[in-house]
């Protein structure tokens, strides 16, 4: 369970948000909403432990996240704005090296299954340079199918995806929540997910 109390974020001179409270329990999802520049990405980066909050505290399983950092990161899967895809590597190599750097090496069969399920059948060995934006996003999203992370923090996962892919991703997210996973994501789209969910509107 991830809890945050009184989070605040300052960027340069501007206070983006303050006093943000949130809690996500197993089997729950949380959609972060807000206008452009409201600090959605900043909030997700703070929750993932990439940048420090100007104020407030974050707890993972009831303990301050700074105390259990390694354990927390072992159970976290964060997909940011940038898809972390290397143009010179193939989809398969990208997926495998990302998993290995993340401390969870992946055998080729699992990686191939994930890539096929995400709709990249036949493109596993092409250099990512020749893939379209949407296809690159799919390579990044294939990581969702490979790990055993409990908490997913996804920044605009639906961006650049076609209608079919949006439905498929919704299915994957539903599955994760159904298994008792936790999900925090941002999106400008009105997404219908099953299970127990909440929305958080970021305002000044």
């Amino acid at each position: 369970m991830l809890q945050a109390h009184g989070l605040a974020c300052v960027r340069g001179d501007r206070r983006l948000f303050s006093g943000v409270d949130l809690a996500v329990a197993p089997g729950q999802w949380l959609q972060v909403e807000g206008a452009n520049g409201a600090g959605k990405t900043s909030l997700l980066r703070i929750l993932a432990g990439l940048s420090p909050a100007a104020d407030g505290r974050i707890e993972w399983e009831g303990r301050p996240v700074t105390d259990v950092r390694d354990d927390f990161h072992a159970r976290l899967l964060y997909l940011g704005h940038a898809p972390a895809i290397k143009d010179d590597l193939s989809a398969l190599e990208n997926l495998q090296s990302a998993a290995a750097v993340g401390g969870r090496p992946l055998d080729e069969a699992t990686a191939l299954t994930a890539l096929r399920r995400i709709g990249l059948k036949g493109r596993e060995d092409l250099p990512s340079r020749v893939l379209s934006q949407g296809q690159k996003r799919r390579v990044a999203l294939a990581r969702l199918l490979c790990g055993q992370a409990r908490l997913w923090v996804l920044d605009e996962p639906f961006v650049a995806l076609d209608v079919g892919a949006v439905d498929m991703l919704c299915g994957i997210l539903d599955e994760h929540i159904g298994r008792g996973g936790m999900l925090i994501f941002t999106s400008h789209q009105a997404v219908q997910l099953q299970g127990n969910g909440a929305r958080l509107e970021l305002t000044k």
Partner: protein
Amino acid sequence: MNAFVAILRRDLLLAMRRKSEMLTALFFFMIVVSLFPLGIGPETALLRRIAPGVLWVAALLAAMLSLNRLFAADHQDGTLEQMALSPTPLALLVSGKVLAHWLTAGLPLVLLAPVLGLQFDLSSRALGILMLSLLLGTPLLSLIGAIGAALTLGVRGGGVLLSLLVLPLYIPALIFGAGAVEADMAGLGAGGHLSLLGALLALGLFFAPWATTAALRIALE
């Protein structure tokens, strides 16, 4: 440890797919070294005297050329974020990247230096010492350079700034590296210089990944 090997393999693979960048730095090394006889004149006694310094300064500049790329691409495409979130300590991953940088940017210089040393009429013994000093010194250049590369990540005018930050810190490596060859040529023995270079390398191995990690975390905030 697996993640260390994984990141080393990934960076080597990426370097292999972009061989031209690696070769550019090597050509730069060759050209700079070849310019000196043209600027100074072909008198062998003088060339032999300046050879260690020239080769070392050129190696220093060539190693610096590739530093910009060390973290910039990872920063841009989001890989660095994933590294910071890995359960493996970031300092270990950084060490893997630095090792990959040395293998692709430092080691080729070490191997090429004796060939260029022949242009300066160095004896085979001096060439051996030159290689040895570069073998000990170039990893140090990669380690120190990584700190500068991390500090200038995403900063305006990062490339020039990087050289301003890193070159003064390269001076001890230059002095002991070039000094080793000179001392040997003067019949004084290179042992002292080489062991000091080794000591600096040990110090760098210990401190540099830590400082680089701290700088990377700042760049990620």
